[in-house]
């Protein structure tokens, strides 16, 4: 889908992902409401849901720390309706001799203040956990 015809919700999510790619977490957080919910396929129940922008900062802070700042999300597709959006990312990161290269689907519901509920799903969770765990 070209940027010209892209749905506004898809374009906004693309901008959010690109902010992460620049390491600009404050710009990323602007796309989410204060009470954002972030679902993540963690093993432990208490790690499965992150609440609020502080939760997102914790989530991405850990990724940045574990990847030594090398994590890069590349947008490969962005799809949207009036209520929902999903963006497909190729995420790469390196740490010493380790390298991560996997796809992630990030789903969200669209609210008046941004992306309210979010599901962040690596296709290869085992590879993701080996790298970031």
């Amino acid at each position: 889908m070209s940027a010209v015809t892209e749905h506004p919700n898809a374009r906004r999510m693309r901008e959010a992902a690109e902010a992460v790619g620049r390491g600009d977490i404050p710009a990323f957080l602007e796309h989410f409401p204060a009470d954002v919910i972030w679902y993540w396929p963690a093993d432990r129940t208490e790690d499965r849901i992150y609440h609020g922008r502080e939760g997102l900062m914790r989530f991405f802070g850990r990724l940045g720390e574990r990847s030594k700042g090398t994590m890069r999300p590349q947008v490969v597709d962005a799809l949207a309706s009036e209520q929902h959006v999903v963006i497909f990312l190729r995420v790469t990161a390196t740490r010493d001799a380790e390298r991560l290269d996997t796809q992630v689907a990030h789903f969200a519901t669209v609210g008046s203040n941004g992306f309210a509920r979010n599901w962040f799903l690596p296709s290869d969770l085992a590879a993701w956990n080996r790298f970031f765990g």
Partner: protein
Amino acid sequence: MREAFDAFNRGDFKTFGSFLAADIVWHVGGHHPLSGDYRGRSAVLEYCTKAFELTKGTLRGEPLDIMTSDRHAGVFNRITGQRVGRRLDAVLAQALTFDADGRWTEYWALADEQDEVNAFWSAAG
């Protein structure tokens, strides 16, 4: 996409299988007896058949929203079913990739209430 989901809902796995690439990889997340990676059409259809049988045919998907391109799809799918006195009612965010012929090549998903999904499939029958 809706034709595939309709086929799944009526337990028509021959038709459902026609939407899958031969080398599809299907990831089932969570921590329950069906969790794991299923590789190849036959393995995926065996998994689907088992899930259908465990719920005595009550397993249903109700797509709430389907977003597609020629390479990917994102689906919010309300999944319901019953087994051994338990009822499942969860929304799954389902991600799919397609090959050049439009067949599904990879599937992965995450529920909003994963603990309930785990408990549902883990219940002793």
